[in-house]
């Protein structure tokens, strides 16, 4: 799509000859998703990227409470309830029950105000003409669960809290480069150093969950992890805290003072953690013991058979999540300054591009899609798969054992007596870890067999999901540490914009001992060129140029083969037929829990 056409169309919307909806439709026809289109309009001052009617399904109940119990099943249990520390979807979602951001992402990619009175736009003066300041107006009359009033001081506090390096918050990336100023008790200004096309990061969605200043103010910095409220949250959400057993279950009850009227519908809430995905699917679809089961990474054939029971349905929401393999850039078997996988080391085998290329050729993505993931996992060659505008047309995936063999032969990796290739005392024998999960173990088996035929020995390791995805700093088996040669998991794309998603390959996000392994760059990919592209995209107001920058970034990580994308993972969940969950592809499952209700 030509830049000029785009500008013309935006001009027509501004003059009123083209409706906003018409604009979004045309954009969609050109492969630009609704989220991107609405953001485009917001930046150019034509329309708010705010949710329109229809972005969020209508809420039917006419009074608060009376809905009984809502039972949600997360087969990975949460271990922490502080949104600034919870790495992993489960922890983010669990804290989202209590803590709310200023706005969340509706599934059409628009922003839906939660603690904000309205979404900033040029029309309401929320977005400055130079794209450098965003002014949020806060909702009045919102109370924390303990009765204290929510105000602009809390918003500013969250920024101070998260950006403090000593706090070591996972959300620091969203807050480090912005400045936040309190205008009055219910107005906050976010200032950017450069014009920022993607401003809806700080205070929005998962990273924007607000914690109360009056309870956390003594726990900023090094002692942040000692706060008792890390496990006993006091938020503004639709449900109040009752009890929490880390790694097991979370109980909450209706918040009678919730700031959105007639909400919530349910009197009590239980989020049960643990178990495995297949049992979770069964607990909803077959036995109906639970109302909703999250992220069902189960072979599609099984889901289809379970759906036949007629109790519930499978919800498939296409987002940006991707199942992928990471080849460690660092050496997990050498300790430098008491740290394994230190960024001062290089992986002895994966530093050779030929080995990485061979590894990428040895996984049969077609078989994964066809025989394992089905509806829940179309094969892909890209790391960045959504919105369509950002999808690189330059990459292809291929499965060829023969080519892998040729590449390794050419690079001088000769087969030893046991059939395993080696060069300069480095053997191609890798520990390949992932979480305990049937499709992942199948993938491991398929990968191992192909690798074996190319003279590479994969030692398979599977770690219980609740350990693998936990934020436990003391545990060596967590995915954020990557103390293995390679690993596989799904990473989720939290917003309809790739900025926050693609920052996980910038060098400053490396997950290291120094930041308690809270950095998002788990594979520890480092490239000056990538860093430069990313910074450029951060300030690029031209949407077309910006998209091409992200495509280049995608191509860089994919072509490096340190990252091997396998299949796209639309969110697959199960719910009982009478439950009306409000799901979003661009925000957590719990993002609008207050709007869930049951049709009787």
């Amino acid at each position: 799509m030509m830049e000029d056409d785009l500008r013309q169309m935006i001009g027509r919307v501004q003059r009123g000859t083209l409706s906003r909806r018409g604009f979004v439709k045309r954009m969609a026809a050109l492969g630009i998703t609704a989220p991107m289109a609405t953001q485009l309009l917001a930046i150019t001052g034509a329309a708010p990227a705010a949710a329109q009617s229809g972005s969020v399904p209508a809420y039917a109940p006419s009074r608060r409470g009376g809905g009984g119990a809502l039972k949600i099943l997360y087969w990975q249990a949460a271990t922490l309830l502080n949104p600034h520390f919870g790495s992993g979807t489960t922890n983010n979602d669990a804290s989202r029950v209590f803590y709310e951001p200023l706005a969340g992402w509706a599934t059409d990619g628009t922003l839906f105000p939660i603690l904000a009175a309205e979404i900033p736009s040029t029309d309401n003066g929320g977005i400055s003409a130079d794209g450098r300041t965003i002014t949020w107006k806060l909702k009045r009359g919102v109370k924390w669960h303990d009765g204290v009033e929510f105000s602009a001081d809390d918003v500013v506090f969250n920024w101070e809290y998260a950006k403090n390096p000593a706090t070591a918050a996972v959300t620091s990336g969203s807050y480090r480069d912005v400045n936040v100023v309190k205008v009055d008790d219910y107005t906050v200004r976010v200032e950017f150093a450069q014009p920022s096309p993607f401003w809806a990061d700080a205070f929005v969605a998962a990273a924007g969950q607000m914690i109360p200043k009056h309870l956390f103010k003594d726990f900023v910095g090094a002692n942040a992890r000692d706060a008792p409220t890390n496990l006993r949250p006091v938020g503004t959400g639709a449900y109040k805290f009752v009890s929490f057993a880390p790694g097991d279950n979370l109980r909450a009850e209706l918040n009678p003072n919730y700031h959105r009227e007639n909400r919530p519908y349910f009197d009590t809430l239980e989020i049960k953690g643990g178990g495995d995905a297949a049992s979770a699917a069964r607990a909803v679809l077959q036995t109906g013991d639970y109302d909703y089961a999250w992220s069902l990474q189960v072979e599609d054939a099984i889901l289809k058979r379970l759906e036949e029971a007629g109790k519930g349905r499978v919800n498939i929401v296409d987002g940006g999540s991707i199942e992928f393999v990471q080849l460690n850039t660092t050496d997990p078997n050498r300790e430098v300054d008491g740290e394994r996988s230190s960024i001062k080391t290089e992986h002895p085998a994966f530093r050779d591009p030929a080995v990485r290329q061979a590894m990428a050729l040895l996984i049969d993505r077609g078989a994964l899609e066809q025989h394992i993931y089905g509806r829940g996992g179309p094969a892909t060659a890209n790391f960045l798969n959504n919105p369509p505008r950002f999808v690189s047309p330059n990459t292809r995936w291929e499965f060829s054992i023969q080519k892998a063999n040729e590449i390794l032969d050419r690079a001088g990796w000769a087969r030893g007596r046991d059939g395993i290739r080696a060069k300069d005392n480095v053997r191609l024998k890798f520990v390949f870890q992932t979480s305990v999960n049937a499709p992942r173990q199948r993938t491991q088996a398929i990968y191992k067999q192909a690798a074996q035929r190319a003279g590479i020995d994969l030692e398979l390791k599977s770690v219980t999901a609740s350990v693998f995805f936990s934020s436990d700093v003391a545990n060596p088996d967590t995915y954020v540490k990557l103390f293995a040669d390679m690993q596989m998991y799904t990473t989720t794309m939290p917003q309809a914009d790739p900025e926050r998603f693609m920052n996980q390959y910038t060098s400053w996000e490396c997950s290291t001992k120094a930041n308690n392994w809270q950095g998002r760059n788990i594979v520890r990919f480092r490239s000056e060129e990538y860093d430069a592209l990313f910074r450029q995209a951060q300030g690029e107001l031209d949407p077309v140029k910006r998209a091409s920058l992200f495509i280049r970034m995608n191509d860089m990580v994919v072509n490096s083969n340190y990252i091997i994308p396998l299949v796209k993972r639309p969110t697959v969940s199960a719910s009982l037929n009478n439950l009306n969950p409000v799901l979003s592809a661009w925000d957590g499952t719990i993002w609008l829990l207050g709007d869930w209700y049951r049709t009787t």
Partner: protein
Amino acid sequence: MAGSIPASASAEPVRRPHVGPWKEAWRRFRKHRLAVVSAAVLLLLILGVLLGPLFWTLPIDEIDFAATLQGPTLAHPLGTDDLGQDLLARVLYGGRISLAVGFTAMLVAVGLGILVGSTAGMAGGRTDAGLMWLTDLFLSLPQLPLLLLIIYLFRASLTEVVGTELGVFILVVSVIGAFNWMPVARLVRAQFLSLREKEFVEAARALGASRRRLVLRHILPNALGPVIVAATIDIAAAIIAESTLSFLGLGFPPDIPTWGRLLFDAKDNLDFAPHWALAPGIAIFLTVVSINFVGDGLRDALDPRRVL
């Protein structure tokens, strides 16, 4: 010679064939029908997993998407799993590991049990009390959580030294063994306490037999009957413990098809591919049941006071 009674052939002492204790035990064992059948089944299973792979040469990890989740056919007598891997080959291979774990863990448990039990039984006094306290302590420990903890703590360091498979094998065997010796120790101690006061032991002592000779030559052989029975039960317990660990995804690496791992993989498909779970399930069942029956038979056979 008057009055003398001529020696008659019938007065000659009866020359019964000499029957040794082992032969006698075998005679008694044979009377327990179920035990004999079980012994045959067990033997068949052991031979099967040892020699089977020589005849059934399909690889355990050959992926064939054209033949996924097939029921039993000629090409795959036990069917295939969801990757089209041959289940017979996997069950045979898994049996080697499961049985090896069972027998080795039993040896560890029985060895420890005899050592502790006989020391306590012979020494008496403070040593006895201390060792029995230790036994009680171990009995009160929750086995599974501890198992998980130990595997979590030591797995990495051990596998680094001896390799993954052997490392996990040593770990699983020693952990299971270390938690199953207590019943054996109690049995042995009780036997020692009663046997050491028996006349034949006193006789031996009166003849000047050393303590060590008393234990090794006179008491221990007589105490072995119940120990052998306990040992058979330990084998079954170890196989089940290993299956539990594999089922939880914590034992051997996921690509090594132990019986427990096969069950774990199969459980999601239980309602539409039951053959997958049945093969390893039946194998575990048969092994454990037959070992228990053999133990039962052995108890009858080795108890000299029992009339059969």
